[in-house]
């Protein structure tokens, strides 16, 4: 594939995605704006396809445009399943892009093409007819086919020489009726002070495609009885403006002489806002043009790498400057430090993308899934603006897809079951993303049947994963579904339940140092909680030292630090240590890592670390302090040493190893088990 094709693909897929989203949104809201949006993006797609001479793609997109046109002009908008059909066409378009040229020769393609053609022809025909009818109607009404913009608003005050009885058949009422047919008309009557039945004055607010002369001509016949004064107050439709209703109320209360002035003031204030709105739109547009720029992700990665280098270099510079006793150098280092921090923040920001990038396809999937299963599901997305590292979005997208599929398939009951249980017929699945400390939390909540603890247990016993005697907490039972090969679905459907999945879900999430938890109540629903760090490349760490080796502990996990004499551990066989009057399990890094080049100091430090499953006290020689840790991979040669999640370079150029505490705890647990055996 040539470079140009790649450019086209990227752009084209994006446009299709927009169109798809718009259609899904239309399906929920029936807002024709969405159809416009879909139309626009498809139009862009078509244009691009023709530029890159993918004629077949362009032509097919052109046909879909007709379908959208049909919906927009209410020709086929009521046809059942028209959105689903259109979505299928979009899918087909995507397939055409991905498959080889041979694809367009398949029977399936021809079928779809025929179907679209049919709809398109129907739309074209109906629209043509409609247009003719419209034209005829316009001619009949004898109105020049003027631009809608030609609407003006008038203010007219009518003063009868003699007050007119409101109950009489005075011709003026006839005139009002005629005017009201052609224009938007608001009539305010002023009653005679002495006789409520008599009208002493009218104020008319008229807006429509009408001229001042037209209006005065209407009153021509009663010229003698009524003095009219007509003023054009605006060359647009005031009735559509914000605050006009309120203005009318005000106008009723003020003396007649001031009314005209009041209206003029209102109109001029409107013009101001119109102007500013317009200019704002213009500047918005200008800003928008500059605001988005397509950059290849490799460039961003390169930039991030460079920034990471800079952060490391800066640490060296800082060290050097502080040793130099040169205040100028120190000041300079301080400045550079600040700038690099800013640079780091900005470049970080670039790698973050909102989660709405992935929620789009979730909407589609949940919808399709629910349709396929004959279930009714509302999919609610909250916090779609929450930002995550783009690689995380890529990693999380598939696992979440899988979980949502599970929610629809196994979680949400059929409408009949739901009615029986007294639940709303429509099930709800909520995707909620939000920041939680240095992590992003994503909750996937369904109000379905929940996880059945006995069912999971039975299955696990059946599979030999646990024994019947094992007493497990609910939480431990839920964790069982993450074991490879575990699936509780009674029947394997085409949607989910193939028994691969939840273990892969967990693995994927853990690969980006995230975690997943389950909370579920049978009959009420299930909540999956995914937590992932904001980013992986730079973390806040606590730099510690044991023997001659530096380690980094992720600061987010550090709870508290204590001074712990090493001799306290020496005679300790239980692997428990008491701090704050409470026993805690501990891991002695020196012993655990067989570090023994330097003699054991008298005093060590204990760090209380909150691991995923339990907290432990990590024993080290010395705590050096906070450290901005630029994570570096530590090569596949060390893939067995997975309790080291990476390395970082310290200010003096030496290397510190970054600990993966959860892995360390797991390992410790394993060795303990072996010891016990």
């Amino acid at each position: 594939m040539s470079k140009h094709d790649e450019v086209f693909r990227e752009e084209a897929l994006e446009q299709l995605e927009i169109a798809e989203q718009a259609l899904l949104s239309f399906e929920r809201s029936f807002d024709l704006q969405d159809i416009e949006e879909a139309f626009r993006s498809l139009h862009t797609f078509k244009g691009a396809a023709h530029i890159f001479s993918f004629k077949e793609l362009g032509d097919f997109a052109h046909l879909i445009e007709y379908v959208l046109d049909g919906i927009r002009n209410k020709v086929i908008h009521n046809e059942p399943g028209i959105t689903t059909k259109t979505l299928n066409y979009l899918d087909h378009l995507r397939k055409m892009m991905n498959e080889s040229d041979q694809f367009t020769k398949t029977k399936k393609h021809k079928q779809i093409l025929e179907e679209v053609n049919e709809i398109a022809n129907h739309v074209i025909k109906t629209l043509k007819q409609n247009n003719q009818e419209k034209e005829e109607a316009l001619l009949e009404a004898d109105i020049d086919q003027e631009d809608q913009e030609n609407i003006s608003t008038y203010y007219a005050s009518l003063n009868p020489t003699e007050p007119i009885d409101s109950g009489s058949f005075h011709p003026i009422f006839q005139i009002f009726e005629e005017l009201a047919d052609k224009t938007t008309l608001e009539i305010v009557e002023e009653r005679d002070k002495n006789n409520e039945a008599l009208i002493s004055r009218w104020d008319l607010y008229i807006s429509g495609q009408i001229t001042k002369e037209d209006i005065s001509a209407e009153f021509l016949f009663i010229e003698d009885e009524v003095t009219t004064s007509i003023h054009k107050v605006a060359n647009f439709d005031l009735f559509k403006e914000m605050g006009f209703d309120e203005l009318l109320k005000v106008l009723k209360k003020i003396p007649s002489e001031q009314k005209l002035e009041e209206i003029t003031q209102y109109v001029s204030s409107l013009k101001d806002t119109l102007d500013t709105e317009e200019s704002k739109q213009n500047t918005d547009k200008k800003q928008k043009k500059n605001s988005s720029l397509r950059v290849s992700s490799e460039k961003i990665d390169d930039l991030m790498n460079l920034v990471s280098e800079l952060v490391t270099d800066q640490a060296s510079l800082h060290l050097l400057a502080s040793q130099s006793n040169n205040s100028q150098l120190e000041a300079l280092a301080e400045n550079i430090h600040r700038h690099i921090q800013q640079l780091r923040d900005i470049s970080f920001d670039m790698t973050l993308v909102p989660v709405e990038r992935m929620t789009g396809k979730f909407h589609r999937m949940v919808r399709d899934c629910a349709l396929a299963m004959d279930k009714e599901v509302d999919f609610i997305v909250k916090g779609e603006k929450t930002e995550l590292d783009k690689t995380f979005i890529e990693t999380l997208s598939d696992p979440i897809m899988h979980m949502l599929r599970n929610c629809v398939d196994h979680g949400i009951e059929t409408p009949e079951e739901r009615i029986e249980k007294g639940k709303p017929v429509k099930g709800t699945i909520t995707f909620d993303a939000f920041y939680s400390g240095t992590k992003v939390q994503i909750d996937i909540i369904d109000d379905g049947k929940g996880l059945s603890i006995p069912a999971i247990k039975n299955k696990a016993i059946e599979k030999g994963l646990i024994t019947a005697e094992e007493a497990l907490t609910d939480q431990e039972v839920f964790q069982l579904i993450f074991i490879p090969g575990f699936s509780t679905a009674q029947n394997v459907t085409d949607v989910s339940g193939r028994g691969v999945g939840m273990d892969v879900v967990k693995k994927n999430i853990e690969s980006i140092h995230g975690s997943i938890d389950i909370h579920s109540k049978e009959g009420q629903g299930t909540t999956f909680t995914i937590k992932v760090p904001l980013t992986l490349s730079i973390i806040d760490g606590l730099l510690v030292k044991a023997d001659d080796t530096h380690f980094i502990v992720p600061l987010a996990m550090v709870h508290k630090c204590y001074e712990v004499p090493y001799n306290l551990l020496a005679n300790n066989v239980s692997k428990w240590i008491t701090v704050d009057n409470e026993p805690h399990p501990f891991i002695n890094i020196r012993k655990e890592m067989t570090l023994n080049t330097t003699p054991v100091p008298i005093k060590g430090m204990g760090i209380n670390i909150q691991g995923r499953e339990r907290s432990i006290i990590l024993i080290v020689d010395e705590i050096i302090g906070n450290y901005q840790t630029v994570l570096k991979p530590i090569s596949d040669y060390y893939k067995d040493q997975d309790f080291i999640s990476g390395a970082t370079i310290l200010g003096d150029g030496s290397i510190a190893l970054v600990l993966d505490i959860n892995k360390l705890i797991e390992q410790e647990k394993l060795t303990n088990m072996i010891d016990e055996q």
Partner: protein
Amino acid sequence: MNNEATATKQMKAYLTFKLNHEVFALGVDKVVEIMEVPRVTKVPKAPDYMKGVINLRGQVLPVIDTRIKFGLTPIELTKDHCIIVINMIIDEKTMYFGALVDQVLEVLEMDEETMLPTPNVNSKYDMRFIQGLLKEGDDFVMVLDIDHTFSIEEIEAIKENNQEQQRD
């Protein structure tokens, strides 16, 4: 392989180095640079031949003790020791690592055709890692098959061997 067939008529450059008084060579195309041994940070619980990691201008580079790799005694570091930084493509992924050797000698320009097949004589070295022999004057230089020698699988294999030995 085609590449090799066309390259046979061309001169090929080899970097020679010493391991335990014996001269070895490897193709320079795989060599990124040669450096003195900086401070090495040992990774705990790793096998002996994984010497540790070093800071190569901001990158973390694993260092392999080539002598242990060939079943010799571990290197006791002196100032003569060098690290040859090698890049290798495994599964379309470029891997960098440092090979710790006793001494780097020189670059030899040799006609590839002069490379002799590995003799089947018994040797104190594991001949599986030898691509062939080059004759330089009266001496023979053993050319290493880098991809084979330092592949992850191979590294895993030594680990198992070592473990077996430890059990013995």
